[in-house]
């Protein structure tokens, strides 16, 4: 075969692979949207589950919202502070390198291992029980390294002249960071935090081991209440429902979860695009 026609064939094969990788996202979105939209109603969104496969998903929605908000409350400030240290202060020595190494190790840790650790350390050892607090803290362990990574990148891309100008005006290093560097890096930091939030919203294994069984019929009343969540609810109904109603509810909950997830990730991407455009100017 001559090289030119082989070239054409190969390019076509490449396009088949591209089509395969591209088709996944729309197929899943359409599938969930098509099957899930039928059951969505005010009642479904605002009432409690009954008899395993009937009723609504209000406690699960609120459980997910509580878990993720608390997790962000723990994870985001810690992550941003770590990123500031790594980007602005850290001398290039052994200690910094090992801090970086451990952050990477934590980022690669399987979520079920983090769940096991949460179960043993938080639930049993610190006696937090299977609860909102234990679930949120465990989730924040998972979210932390991603926030650090993205925030550090964002802080590092702030031009050096900004810092020099501020320091030349007599500001201290910390004043420079708070008043100049962080505001300039904010959209990038926001992207990092939001990507972490997106991960936490959909995380199942960690909340399964630490937060609750998923069928809790009440919105958590305190930090020590067991807490249901959308991913756990979907898992239970998808694998154990016997009726059409149950499967329908799994679709409906999946649609709600996907909307929450997409809302968060799309704002993350928008924050980044805004940031990149501003840097370009």
């Amino acid at each position: 075969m001559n090289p030119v026609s082989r070239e054409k064939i190969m390019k076509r094969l490449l396009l088949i692979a591209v089509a395969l990788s591209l088709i996944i996202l729309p197929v899943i979105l359409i599938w969930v949207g098509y099957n899930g939209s039928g059951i969505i109603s005010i009642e479904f969104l605002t009432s409690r589950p009954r008899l395993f496969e009937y009723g609504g998903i209000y406690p699960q929605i609120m459980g997910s919202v509580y878990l993720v908000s608390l997790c962000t409350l723990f994870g985001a400030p810690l992550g941003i502070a770590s990123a500031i240290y790594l980007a602005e202060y850290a001398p290039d020595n052994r200690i910094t390198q090992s801090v970086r190494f451990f952050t990477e190790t934590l980022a690669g840790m399987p979520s079920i291992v983090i769940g096991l650790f949460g179960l043993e350390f938080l639930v049993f050892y610190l006696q937090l029980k299977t609860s909102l607090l234990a679930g949120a803290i465990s989730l924040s362990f998972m979210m932390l390294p991603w926030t650090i990574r993205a925030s550090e990148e964002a802080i590092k891309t702030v031009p050096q002249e900004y810092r020099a100008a501020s320091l030349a005006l007599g500001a201290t290093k910390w004043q420079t960071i708070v008043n100049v560097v962080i505001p300039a890096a904010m959209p990038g930091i926001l992207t990092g935090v939001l990507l972490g939030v997106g991960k936490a919203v959909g995380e199942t294994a960690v909340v399964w081991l630490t937060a609750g069984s998923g069928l809790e019929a009440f919105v958590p009343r305190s930090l020590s209440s067991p807490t249901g969540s959308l991913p756990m609810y979907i898992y239970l109904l998808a694998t154990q429902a016997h009726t059409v109603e149950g499967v329908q509810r799994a679709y409906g909950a999946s649609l709600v979860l996907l909307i929450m997830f997409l809302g968060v990730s799309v704002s993350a991407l928008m924050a980044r695009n805004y940031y990149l455009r501003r840097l370009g100017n």
Partner: protein
Amino acid sequence: MMKLESLIEKALFLSASFSALIVFLITFFLIREGVPALSLNFLTGLEWRPGQEFFGTLPTIIGTLWVVIGAVFIALLIGVPTSIYLSEFAPFWVRNIIKSSVEVIVGIPSVVIGFFGLMILVPFIRNTIGGRGESILAGWIVLAIMILPNLISLTEDSLRAVPKSYREASLALGATQWQTITKVIVPAASSGIRAAIVLGVGRAIGETMAVLMVIGNPETPWIPTSILDMTRTLTSTIAIEFSYAEWGSPHQHALFAIGVVLFLLVTALNFVATFVIRRNKN
């Protein structure tokens, strides 16, 4: 004033060390609970019957390897050509759209992908190929979907990092674009691609929910002989059994021992990948 500044620096350093602290705590607590159950028999035993205190994980380990290797292979088959297209052929706007949509897939809740597998793939396999549908094959496809985005992203980065002069030199010698890609660009990017594969394997081993929902998880796992067999993975065993393992029982220790195996495997793989990437940069 200076005192405040140095206090702040110390506080920031403490925050940065927190991740290291968590990793230490994870290691310590997993080892404390898991190591008592670790033994040669644990790794080579063929029977997993928690009720009779048989804790052999060999069938589970082999099941995990089957699922992971197949999934990584499928992901490579689709992911590498996609990355080649993105870095060598795609116009700027196409590349942008694909890269963003790929980044969204990275985070799609795995339970939704598992649900998709359970409702669509499993019946499809049962009706067209046979078996129960819940199978290694279903695990391959679901897991390939999960690891594809990262693989594409990393592979594309390493392809784009190949200097333009390589391409120009090859084309100037009369090579076609395709010859340039297969003989110059892919070999030059090969260590980056290898790192992407290693990271993909690590991620695949650690994935829990999506795989768990489609592979059947038989009560007593066996060493799979066909891709239509049901199987278990290390992660699915922990997830399914932790809730009825009594705290402090040998069963619970065995589950933590599986956690130790997972932790060691994944950390070793990440270590290798970091090493490969770092060597690349130098």
